[in-house]
């Protein structure tokens, strides 16, 4: 298993290439620029619409540079549209789900990759397969399980697990665990056996091997996976849609679908909502893009 792209191979290659024949890439550049413009247009259009107050668009139409440009739509979406609350709901779901999935997946990965026992491959296959199922396959039973799981009303105002964050966190965690276990077990398998052998000689138990030797060495994998999982779970639309009925508890990705109906005649406000939803992703994109890319390629580097 290789960690994403090794920079050394990427660096050495252009020299040999450009040495053989200097290439002009005009055609390539024209094509790529055209594609890049097509790629950016929907995003730019959303930002453009969001920056124009509805009064300006009513007066001058949507396809005009005339009128004001300001942040009024963002302010309105934030305060009246409830985006502050929705983003907070996303945090409430995302943070525990990501921490739990990494915790459980790292233990499982350790057990299947560093210790040999009868069913480790079987279990790893089961975990990996679970992550590949379409979520809709599980929707009906999970919904009914949550609905028929009675809890005190002091715990949940629905009297069952529907409409709680806990069920969304638990299902997200379970669904992502297979992928994280798979990636982490590949990573741990690649670590030298001598590491734990030395610890074994010193009489270190399983837990110390896991906690003090393997875990610190997996930090790069954790960084990549945590970034990836934050985005995956933040972007999850389906599980909150299934389990959460009261609109004010929805995380932002699912809530924006409801706003589509509410803001039907105010596309400027809808665009502002969409842009607000992109902002956390954008922050990750700017700060942690390398981690994100490493996470995606980690998952696929084993064939």
């Amino acid at each position: 298993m290789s960690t994403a792209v090794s920079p050394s191979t990427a660096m050495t290659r252009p020299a040999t290439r450009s040495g053989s024949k200097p290439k002009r890439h005009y055609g390539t550049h024209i094509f790529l620029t055209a594609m890049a413009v097509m790629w950016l247009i929907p995003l730019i259009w959303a930002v453009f619409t969001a920056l124009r107050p509805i009064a300006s668009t009513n007066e001058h139409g949507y396809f005009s540079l005339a009128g004001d440009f300001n942040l009024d739509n963002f302010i309105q979406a934030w305060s009246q549209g409830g985006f502050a609350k929705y983003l907070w709901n996303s945090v409430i779901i995302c943070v525990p789900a990501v921490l739990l999935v990494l915790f459980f997946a790292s233990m499982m990965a350790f057990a299947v990759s560093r210790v040999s026992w009868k069913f480790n491959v079987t279990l790893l296959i089961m975990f990996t397969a679970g992550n590949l199922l379409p979520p809709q396959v599980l929707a009906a039973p999970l919904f009914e399980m949550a609905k028929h799981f009675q809890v005190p009303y002091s715990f949940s105002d629905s009297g069952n697990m529907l409409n709680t964050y806990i069920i969304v966190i638990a299902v997200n965690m379970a669904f992502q665990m297979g992928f994280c276990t798979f990636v982490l077990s590949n990573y741990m398998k690649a670590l030298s056996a001598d590491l734990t052998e030395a610890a074994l000689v010193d009489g270190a138990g399983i837990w110390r091997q896991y906690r003090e030797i393997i875990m610190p060495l997996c930090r790069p994998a954790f960084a990549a996976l945590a970034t990836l999982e934050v985005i995956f779970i933040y972007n999850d639309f389906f599980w909150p849609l299934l389990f959460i009925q009261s609109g004010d508890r929805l995380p932002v990705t699912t809530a924006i679908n409801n706003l589509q109906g509410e803001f039907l005649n105010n596309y400027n406000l809808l665009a502002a909502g969409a842009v607000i939803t992109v902002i956390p992703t954008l922050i990750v994109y700017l700060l942690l893009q390398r981690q994100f890319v490493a996470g995606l390629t980690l998952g696929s580097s084993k064939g």
Partner: protein
Amino acid sequence: MSTTARDLVPPESRAPSGAPAKGVRSGKVRRLSKRDKAVLSLMVGIPTLIQLVFIWLPTVMSVGLSFTRWNGLALSDIRPAGADNYQYISQDYPPFWPAIQHNLLWLAFLALVATPLGLLLAVLLDQQIRGSRIYQSIFFGPVMLSLALIGIIWQLFYQRDNGLLNFLLGTSGTPQAVDWFGDSSVNIWAAMIAATWRHAGYVMLLYLAGLKGVDPTLKEAAAIDGATAAQTFFRVVFPAMRPINIVIVVITIIESLRAFDVVYVINRGTNGLELLSALVIQNLVGEGQVIGVGSALAVVLLVISLVPIVFYLSRTFGKENRA
């Protein structure tokens, strides 16, 4: 995998050569203390329990419920229904066959348009042309967005009266203006283009990593042998990326089966946008909850999904099992 374990065992405690591998393994297990065994069983047991309760039990229950009739209220109302639900969806449920067609169309579009486009972008960007990083960042951007949000962003672009596309086509405000997401004859195409926006970037990213992993001497050797750029790519580079190719085939199939968010955001998967995943949900939520029918649709989706899943797992774990 088992080599790791064998290496863990110091040579002197290894079973004599010729002894069955099983002996080595049980020798290894005996080396664990009682406490270690307890710790290990917790480390394995808790995640496995979570997987069983939230993934595999519901999968089995989906299969079970598909042979019943149930409105989702009291558990005592569940009635056996034999294969009635399957008969109903295949013969009397109008959206079923359109949904199958749309899922296949979605797969074909991703496989024939979005994935090759991603590969093309990767190949072009791998040439170390100027600005490669900027292009990569642009194409990669949508990969980080949720498909639900992509539906919203493209809705703004596709709207009939105020969308940019009709303005650029010059039909905005005229009777010829197309409602790209509303018109059932075109909306599946519009939705697939929106999905391509994300999928192509994803494929590009994976292939960029794959291309950098190809041994450059392979290409040099092909060039010395007089191969053209196209021959080098299709006969040497592309086959050398086999592991990535398998992952991409699987991702493309699974993404087309999982397509849900975009169509649900547009119109909940009706009026030209029927997909299996959306039909499952339509039968579970809302007024007439028909859990049996929804589950039968879910089982159809499950059975189709098992094809790429089994293919992928046998590729990935096949070698280890034999070892």
